[in-house]
């Protein structure tokens, strides 16, 4: 190679070990910190930490769909609801199933799915729903996906409300075994972060971003854009389904109003504030908005200022759109983070 070619073009080693080792070290560090914290934290603190982890997982998985691939999905609450109900119904103790879930088929009523199996089936159900919607809607241009996913929220809520025999309607499912703890939530968050990060810095991720930037040009270099969009959409939905299933087993209640349009809005705000396509930005926005919501709760309840946190979220969105429309991190990640995990990419 001639000498006017910059260093970055020098051929990479086949398998950069450094990045993987550093990731493992960081995960170990994070888990150790969590272990320390869990012995100090109150029950409330532990639940809050778990919620932060789940919200980070939600925002980052939406970043895959809306940020990297440039679709506009509002469907996360619907996929969470599907995951939550499927997992909760399957994982309900048999004794309660027979009294409370009259509409359940014999085979299911007599079987309490192990937690992991219930969560996995919840995720599969969310993924199948996304796949069906994606097949129909993703080939259309424009904002059909936003409308369709909004419609899905309404449909899923309607199903949960009216399918009495299985969902117990408006009163929802309560007394779900509290199987989820901070470890599950932290584990899921790490898994989502690792998967989305790996996708972003891969050929498939570049195909997703190419689709976002210019779908026609992407097609013309051989990217099967319909398939790429479907993959990103379904993968995001599966992640949301797992979050929903874990959340149901954390809060022990799921009702038709648990996850709605407000949550869809908040998640989109996290993506926009963080920067469309930025994993780091989504993490920071998710942590900040979750903690702010919790911090304002005493104020809301003590002074009757209900809706205050929602107004603050909207205000934050307006400020970011006005002064930093590309979001905190644009579509990128901080250079030191890339150097840390994928040293071969930046030299």
């Amino acid at each position, binding site marked *: 190679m001639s000498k006017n070619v910059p260093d970055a073009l020098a051929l990479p080693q086949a398998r950069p070990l450094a990045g993987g080792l550093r990731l493992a070290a960081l995960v170990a560090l994070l888990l150790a910190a969590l272990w320390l914290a869990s012995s100090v934290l109150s029950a409330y603190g532990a639940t809050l930490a778990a919620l932060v982890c789940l919200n980070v997982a939600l925002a980052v998985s939406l970043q895959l769909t809306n940020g990297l691939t440039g679709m506009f999905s509002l469907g996360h609450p619907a996929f969470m609801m599907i995951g939550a109900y499927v997992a909760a119904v399957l994982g309900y103790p048999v004794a309660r199933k027979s009294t409370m879930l009259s509409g359940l088929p014999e085979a299911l009523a007599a079987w309490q799915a192990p937690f992991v199996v219930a969560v996995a089936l919840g995720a599969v159900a969310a993924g199948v729903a996304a796949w069906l919607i994606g097949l129909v809607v993703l080939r259309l241009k424009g904002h059909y996906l936003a409308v369709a996913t909004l419609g899905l929220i309404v449909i899923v809520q309607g199903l949960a409300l009216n399918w009495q025999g299985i969902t117990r309607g408006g009163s929802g499912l309560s007394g779900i075994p509290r199987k989820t703890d901070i470890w599950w939530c932290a584990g899921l968050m790490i898994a989502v972060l690792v998967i989305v990060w790996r996708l972003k810095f891969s050929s498939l991720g570049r195909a997703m971003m*190419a689709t976002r930037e210019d779908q026609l040009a992407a097609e013309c270099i051989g990217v099967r854009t319909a398939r790429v969009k479907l993959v990103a959409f379904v993968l995001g939905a599966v992640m949301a389904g797992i979050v929903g299933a874990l959340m149901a087993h954390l809060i022990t209640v799921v009702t038709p109003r648990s996850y709605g349009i407000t949550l869809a809005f908040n998640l989109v705000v996290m993506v926009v504030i963080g920067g469309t396509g930025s994993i780091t930005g989504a993490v920071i926005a998710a942590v900040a908005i979750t903690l702010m919501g919790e911090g304002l709760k005493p104020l809301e309840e003590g002074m009757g200022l209900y809706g205050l946190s929602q107004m603050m979220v909207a205000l934050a969105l307006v400020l970011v759109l006005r002064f930093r429309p590309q979001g905190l991190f644009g579509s990128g990640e901080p250079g030191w983070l890339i150097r840390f995990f994928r040293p071969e990419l930046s030299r």
Partner: protein
Amino acid sequence: MSAMIDRPPALLLAFAPGRRGNGTIDSETILSAEGLTRRFGGITAVEGYDLRLAQGDLVGLIGPNGAGKTTVFNMLSGVLRPSAGGVAVNGQDLTGRPAHRFARAGLARTFQNIRLFDDLNVFDNVMSGGHMRLGAGLWPTMLQLPRFWRAEAAIRERAAGVVELVGLGPHIGRRAGDLSYGDRRRVEIARALASDPQVLLLDEPAAGLNPSETAGLTALIRELVNRHGITVLLVEHDMRLVMALCHRIQVLNRGRFVAEGAPREIQSDPAVIEAYLGTRRTRAGAA
């Protein structure tokens, strides 16, 4: 198979090897079109366009503005479905197929109004061209299997080679949307080349370039054809460039052929001169 069946029978005949009157599609033919026609509502933008490109050909497609050149490109690359007629890449009849099938069959193109992935840097733009043939699938990527690392290395290697070939080395880290016009054109060519095409369609690649950039482009096209065996179909308003480069030239006016032949014949063809005089074209208006 169903793809073959739902096509009009006339095309099946036209593209079935060995069944045509004047010669079959031999293995040398990389891109062929027959009777390509495209109507937009009432107007016919292109009518009865024929093409046969053999390996190593460098053919120019010229004509005044609005002649239908870009529409021809769009049909040849699967971006537009022809109203009538058919296209075959490497002997595969791809009429009516999506554009990514054309790319896979070995065709790459650039756009008259450059279409880059503006928010990605230059190197990512070029590497995205390597995805089709070299990219790893979903599972190897998520699990970072050895296959993933091999694929990434191959894509980087290919992109690095292409970047060097078109001389974009100093710019690889820059955001594509921030580049100068001439550099953007080169990124687009590099991205197309990264998909490892056999035939390259260039839509007004010299538009907006300064003379030294145009000279560089001319040398690059020549190198692609002569050294790398790539077949090129070129739409260009810069007549000096077209006449100097092309082995053969097609002239289009109002969607129809006016002439086809060697540069020398074209330059002295009265019909061509009339087409151009009839709609006097200015260099500035060309882009």
